[in-house]
């Protein structure tokens, strides 16, 4: 958002002083991430990872992976939400998410059927959180109906609430809400879009 607002009358005076020095920024940013980590003032680390379904945003707190977001959710908006709901101390710190990125890469390559990552479920609460905690019970390559998940979560009538829990899943792919489909076999909606849901289920049945 910041553009060159420099008064044009003196622009030439400072022309040799680069507006953006990529090398210096990279070096200083790495130093800041390290120092902020040591000082305990890096609350949310994030990075993106390229997948067949587009770039995924990954964000983690000290406790674990807290958010996975598709590009259609607007990564800038998601980071803004994280700053508001968790802490404004948000930094691009890819190394802190290497493990999650590696596991997602393996998953999309068909070489991984489950995730073994520390998770931070603080963005979900109540019944939604209960629903999320049951999603990993649905085996890789299989599906369950919204009604079956509602029953598993202890409230068979809360079919619609299961749909909401899936739609607001802060950790899609990792918590496999894409395996929850309608009782009539129709795939239904998905936070990453219906095509992404289809692609994930196809990946899992092909592997």
């Amino acid at each position: 958002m910041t553009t060159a607002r420099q008064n044009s009358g003196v622009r030439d005076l400072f022309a040799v002083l680069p507006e953006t020095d990529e090398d210096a920024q990279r070096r200083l940013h790495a130093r800041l991430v390290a120092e902020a980590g040591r000082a305990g003032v890096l609350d949310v680390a994030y990075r993106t990872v390229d997948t067949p379904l587009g770039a995924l945003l990954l964000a983690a707190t000290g406790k674990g992976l807290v958010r996975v977001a598709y590009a259609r959710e607007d990564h800038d908006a998601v980071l803004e939400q994280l700053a508001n709901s968790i802490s404004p101390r948000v930094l691009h710190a890819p190394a802190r998410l290497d493990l999650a990125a590696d596991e997602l890469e393996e998953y999309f390559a068909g070489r991984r059927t489950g995730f073994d990552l520390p998770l931070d479920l603080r963005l979900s609460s109540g019944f939604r959180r209960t629903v999320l905690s049951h999603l990993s019970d649905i085996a890789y390559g299989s599906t369950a109906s919204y009604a079956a998940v509602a029953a598993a979560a202890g409230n068979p009538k809360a079919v619609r609430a299961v749909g909401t829990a899936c739609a607001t899943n802060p950790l899609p792919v990792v918590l496999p809400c894409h395996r929850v489909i309608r009782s009539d076999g129709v795939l239904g909606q998905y936070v990453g879009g219906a095509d992404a849901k289809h692609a994930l289920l196809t990946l899992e049945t092909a592997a």
Partner: protein
Amino acid sequence: MQRHGPTVLRVCRAVLGPTAADDAWSETFLAALRAYPKLRPGSNLEAWLVTIAHRKAIDHLRAESRRAVPVGDLPEQPSTSPLPGGWESDLWAALKELPPKQRAAVAYHYLAGLPYADVADVLGGSPEAARRAGADGIAALRRTYPHTPHVRGDEGEAS
């Protein structure tokens, strides 16, 4: 906050030169991270960062003047590999000759884009004094800094 990284670095470089700018930038953003949760929503982030950077710059200038006393000639900055003809040699040499207040006013107004009312908040004093410091600084740079625009623009070849 990260969006303002390049601007704050440019400001630190103009105020402190190549050697201390990196440290001041790092200290500014670390301090900003610490204080961020207390920042009022809707605050002008860039002005806030410049304010922090200004305090860090003052710390550096004080430390430098303390160090400068016992040493006769300051050694040439050894580790920053200034490019021949780059900003480190010519522009910084000219900026360094300005009184600190003028240098700061020039950097905060012309590089960070802060209005003089905000520059005055950072520096202390009135907006008029800040404007004067900025204008005097630019005028002095035009006299001392060799790469003035009309030399390049009119002659087609820099002398």
